[in-house]
C-alpha cells in the first residue's frame, strides 16, 4: 500500500489512484506475442470463449498489421470485446485453454485483444453497419453487456431498437460496476457509442414503472428484451447496520467510476464482507481510497470463494488481508453512531449444500471482536424484483424463467438475457456470458420474425 501514499496529498484522494493499473502493450510487445501464436486450427481458445471469438484469426491480423480487421473480428463476436479484454478471467477461459500452456507459456490473449480494440478506439474505426430496416421494433430494457449486445445484433439485422436505461449514463455493469483501475468508463462508453452509431436510440434516465410502463412497451414494440441485470447488495441482516460507516460495495465502485472518491476511508480500518468479484473491487477500492488496513471476511474458505484467481492475486498485491471462516454477527458503534467494532464468529464447513458448496456453520463460543471503522458489504446482489413483477413475469427469487433455447419468458413477447436470468449454480455471471446471451437473444428474436421480415423485403 505504501507506494500509493504519494497519491494522497493533504488528505485528498487523487484520481491517479483510479487510473487503469495495467499498461497497454506497445506495438513491439503486441507483435512479438502475436507472432508467437501458433494460429491453431479449430483452436481450443475459441471453444473456451463464451462468445466464440476467432482468436487465432484476430491475432494473425495483429501480426499482419491488419488492426482494423483484428478489431472487427473481436467485436463481431463480442459487442463488449474491449471491456472483456480487461475484465475476462482469461486464465480460466481462452488463455487457460491455449495449447502453449503445455509447451512454453500461453499467449496473452486478453492483452492482445486490448491492443486491437484500443487501436479501434484511438482511430475511431467504423467497424459495423446497421442492416437495412426491416420494419420491426424491439425495446431493450437495460444497457449493460446483455442489453447492448442484443441491441447491436438486432440493429445489424435491420431492427429498430430502443434501449431504456434508468441511469443517466449507459453501459450498465461495465460503466458503473467494475473498478475504474481495471475498466475505465471510457472503454464502456466507446462500446455504447458503437451501438448508438448503428441507429439504436438509448433513452437514459428512464425508469420502468415511473417514466415508462411495461404494458406500453409490450404494446408499442414487436418484442421486448429484459436485460436489467442485478441490483444492490442485500442487507447483512445483523444488528448495527444503520450505523455510520456502512457501505454497499456496488455503490462504492459506482462512486469511484463517477470520479467521486469518498474521503472517509483515509487512514481507516475497513472490513469487506464477502469474497466474490465485487468484494475484491470493494477491497481494492478501499485501498486506493487511502484505507490503512483492509480485510476481506468470508464465511467459507479460499477454496470456495467466487473471486477469480487473478482478482485474489491482485487484492493480495494491493495489501488486502483475508480472514477465512469468519462471519460478522453484530456491529458496535460509538456515541456518535459510528461503527467502531465488529463482533465476528468463527465458522466451520459441514456437508455440501444444493449448489455444491459446503455449508458454513458457526462454532459455538468462538465470537471475538474486531476493531474497524468501515464495513463494506459485498455478499451478492439483490434482484430487480419490482421490474420483473411489473412485467408480470414468472421468476424464482428474482431469477426470471426463460426457455433456454428461445430466451422467451412467461410472456410470449418478452425475452430476457444476462444477469436477470442468472441463477444460483446455473451458468456464469460474467460480462462475456451476458454478451453471448445478448447475441443469442437477438438471434432468437430474429428467428421469430425472420419469415415475415423476408417476405416484406
Amino acid at each position, binding site marked *: 500500500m505504501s507506494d500509493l501514499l504519494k497519491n494522497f496529498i493533504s488528505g485528498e484522494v487523487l484520481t491517479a489512484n483510479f487510473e487503469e493499473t495495467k499498461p497497454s502493450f506497445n506495438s513491439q510487445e503486441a507483435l512479438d506475442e502475436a507472432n508467437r501464436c501458433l494460429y491453431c486450427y479449430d483452436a481450443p481458445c475459441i471453444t473456451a470463449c463464451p462468445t466464440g471469438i476467432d482468436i487465432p*484469426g484476430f491475432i*494473425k*491480423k495483429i501480426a*499482419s*498489421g*491488419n488492426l*482494423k*480487421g483484428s478489431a472487427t473480428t473481436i467485436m463481431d463476436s463480442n459487442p463488449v470485446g474491449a471491456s472483456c479484454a480487461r475484465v475476462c478471467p482469461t486464465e480460466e477461459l481462452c488463455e487457460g485453454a491455449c495449447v502453449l500452456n503445455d509447451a512454453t507459456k500461453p499467449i496473452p490473449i486478453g492483452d492482445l485483444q486490448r491492443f486491437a480494440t484500443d487501436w479501434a478506439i484511438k482511430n475511431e474505426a467504423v467497424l459495423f453497419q446497421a442492416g437495412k430496416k426491416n420494419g420491426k421494433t424491439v425495446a431493450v430494457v437495460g444497457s449493460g453487456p446483455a442489453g447492448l449486445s442484443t441491441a447491436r445484433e438486432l440493429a445489424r439485422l435491420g431492427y429498430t431498437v430502443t434501449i431504456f436505461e434508468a441511469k443517466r449514463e449507459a453501459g450498465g455493469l461495465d460503466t458503473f460496476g467494475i473498478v475504474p483501475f481495471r475498466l475505465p468508463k471510457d472503454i464502456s462508453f466507446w462500446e455504447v457509442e458503437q451501438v448508438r452509431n448503428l441507429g439504436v436510440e438509448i433513452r437514459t434516465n428512464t425508469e420502468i414503472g415511473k417514466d415508462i410502463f411495461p404494458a406500453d412497451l409490450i404494446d408499442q414494440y414487436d418484442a421486448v428484451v429484459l436485460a436489467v441485470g442485478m441490483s444492490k447488495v442485500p442487507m447483512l441482516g445483523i444488528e448495527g447496520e444503520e450505523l455510520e460507516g456502512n457501505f454497499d460495495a456496488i455503490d462504492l465502485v459506482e462512486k469511484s467510476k463517477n470520479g467521486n472518491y469518498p474521503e472517509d476511508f483515509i487512514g481507516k480500518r475497513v472490513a469487506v464482507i464477502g469474497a466474490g468479484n465485487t468484494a475484491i473491487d470493494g477491497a481494492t477500492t478501499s485501498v486506493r481510497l487511502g484505507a490503512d488496513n483492509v480485510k476481506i471476511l468470508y464465511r467459507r474458505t479460499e477454496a470456495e470463494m467466487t473471486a477469480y484467481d487473478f482478482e485474489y492475486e491482485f487484492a493480495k498485491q494491493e495489501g488486502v488481508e483475508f480472514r477465512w471462516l469468519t462471519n460478522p454477527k453484530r456491529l458496535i458503534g460509538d456515541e456518535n453512531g459510528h461503527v467502531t467494532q465488529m463482533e465476528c464468529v468463527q465458522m466451520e464447513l459441514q456437508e455440501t449444500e444444493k449448489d455444491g458448496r459446503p455449508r458454513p456453520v458457526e462454532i459455538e463460543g468462538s465470537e471475538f471482536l474486531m476493531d474497524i471503522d468501515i464495513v463494506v458489504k459485498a455478499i451478492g446482489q439483490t434482484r430487480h424484483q419490482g421490474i420483473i413483477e411489473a412485467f408480470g413475469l414468472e421468476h424464482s427469487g428474482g431469477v426470471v424463467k426463460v426457455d433456454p433455447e428461445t430466451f422467451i419468458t412467461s410472456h410470449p413477447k418478452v425475452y430476457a438475457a444476462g444477469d436477470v436470468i442468472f441463477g444460483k449454480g446455473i451458468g456464469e455471471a460474467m460480462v462475456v456470458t451476458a454478451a453471448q446471451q445478448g447475441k443469442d437473444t437477438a438471434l432468437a428474436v430474429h428467428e421469430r420474425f425472420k419469415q415475415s421480415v423476408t417476405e416484406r423485403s
Partner: protein
Amino acid sequence: MADISIDFAGIKSPNPYWLASAPPTNTGYQVQRAFEAGWGGAVWKTLGEPILNVTSRFGASHFNGQRVAGFNNIELISDRPLEENLKEIYETKKLYPDRVIIASLMVEPEREKWHEIVKRVQDVGVDGFELNLGCPHGMSERGMGAAVGQHPDLVERTTMYAKEAAEVPVITKLTPNITDITATAKAAARGGADAISLINTINSLIGVDLDTWNTVPNVNGKGAHGGYCGPAVKPIALNMVGECARNPEVNIPISGIGGISTWQDTVEFMLMGAGGVQVCTAAMHHGFRIIEDLTEGLENYLDEKGIDALSDIIGKSVEKYTDWSNLDLNHKVVARINNDVCINCNKCHIACEDTSHQCIDMLTDKDGNAILRVREEDCVGCNLCSIVCPVEGAIDMIDLTPTEPPMSWNDRQAAIHMLEKR
C-alpha cells in the same frame, strides 16, 4: 470498400489471390475447399504424363524459433491420371463459375505433345493455361520444366506451341534458376505469351542432419536438390518481377509468385508490377483460411489510402526501380539515435565498429547515463545500425538537405565524357 477484383490478361478474378500450382491444388476436393474459403483462383497442380513420387518430399528452414522461413520440395507434377484431374476441373468450375481455374501443363518441348494436351484440357473448360517451364527437380532431368525454362529459345518455342492450340490466355511460368530472368521473360513474350508468372522454386538443399549425415529431406538415405520457396525467397522473386516489369521488351502482365504470405507482400508485388499473385507456402503452413486476412487486409489498406480499386496500384513503384548507375551520388543519409527510446543493447555500435564505418560512439552523458551517438560526418548512411536495432524508433535514418544538385554515375560519366571531348 475498395474493389480488389482483377482482370489479369483478360482473366477476371474476384480477388488477386490464386493458389499456385503445387500440392494445395492437387485435387478437386482441395480446390473446392479453397474456393469455399474465398480464394479467387487456383492454378491446378501440373498436368502431364503421370509420374511416380517418392517419400519423403518436403523440408523447411526454421529461423530463430519461427517455423517455415523457407520451404523446399522434391515432389513432381500430378501423379494422378489426367482423366481424373480433368473430371474434377470440370466439376469444380461448374460449382464455382466466378472463380479462376488455370491448368498448369508440362510436356516435352514438342509441338504435337503441347497441341494435344492443350486441346484435351481446353475441352473441359479452363480460364487459362500456365506452362510449367520451371520445375527445378526431377522433371528437369527428363528434359522438361527448368530444363526448358533455362533456354530462351525453348521457352519461346514452347510458348508458341501452346499458343497455337490455346483459345484461352497462356501464362508462361519462369524459373529463377537462371542468370538473367529478362532473357526468358522476353523469350516468352516473343513466343506470344499472354502473361508470365514468376518465380518458380529455387534449387536448394535444406540441410544435413548432424547425427545421420543424411540430407534433409532424404529418401532412404539419399537426397536430391529441391525447389525452394516460402518467405525467404520473397526478395529474390520481387526483384525478378521488378526486372521484368521495367523491361519494355517484356511488356506483358506478370503473375507474382514467391514467398507471398501477407496482404502486405501482395501490395509490394503489385506495386512492383504484378497484376495478381499466387500463394502456396503460406497456405501449406496455415491452411486456406489465411485468405480472410489476405483479402480483408488488402481492402482495409486501400480504404485507408483512399484508393478505390486494387488495379490502380499495379506497377506504381516500377519507375522507382532502376539501374544502380541512375542513383543520385549526391544524396546523403545519416543515422540518428534517439537515446530516450534506445535500450542500450549496443548492437548498433558493434555492428558499425566491426563491420561498417566506425561512426557510433559509446559515451556517457552529464548525468552518468550510457548513450550512443553517431558522428554524422563519418556516417555513410548504410542503414546497418537501424537494421540491427531491435527497438522501433530508436534509430532514424535522416535525409540531409542536399548541398549539391542530384548527380548519378551516368550523369557523371556523361559530364566527364563531354569535358574530354572539348
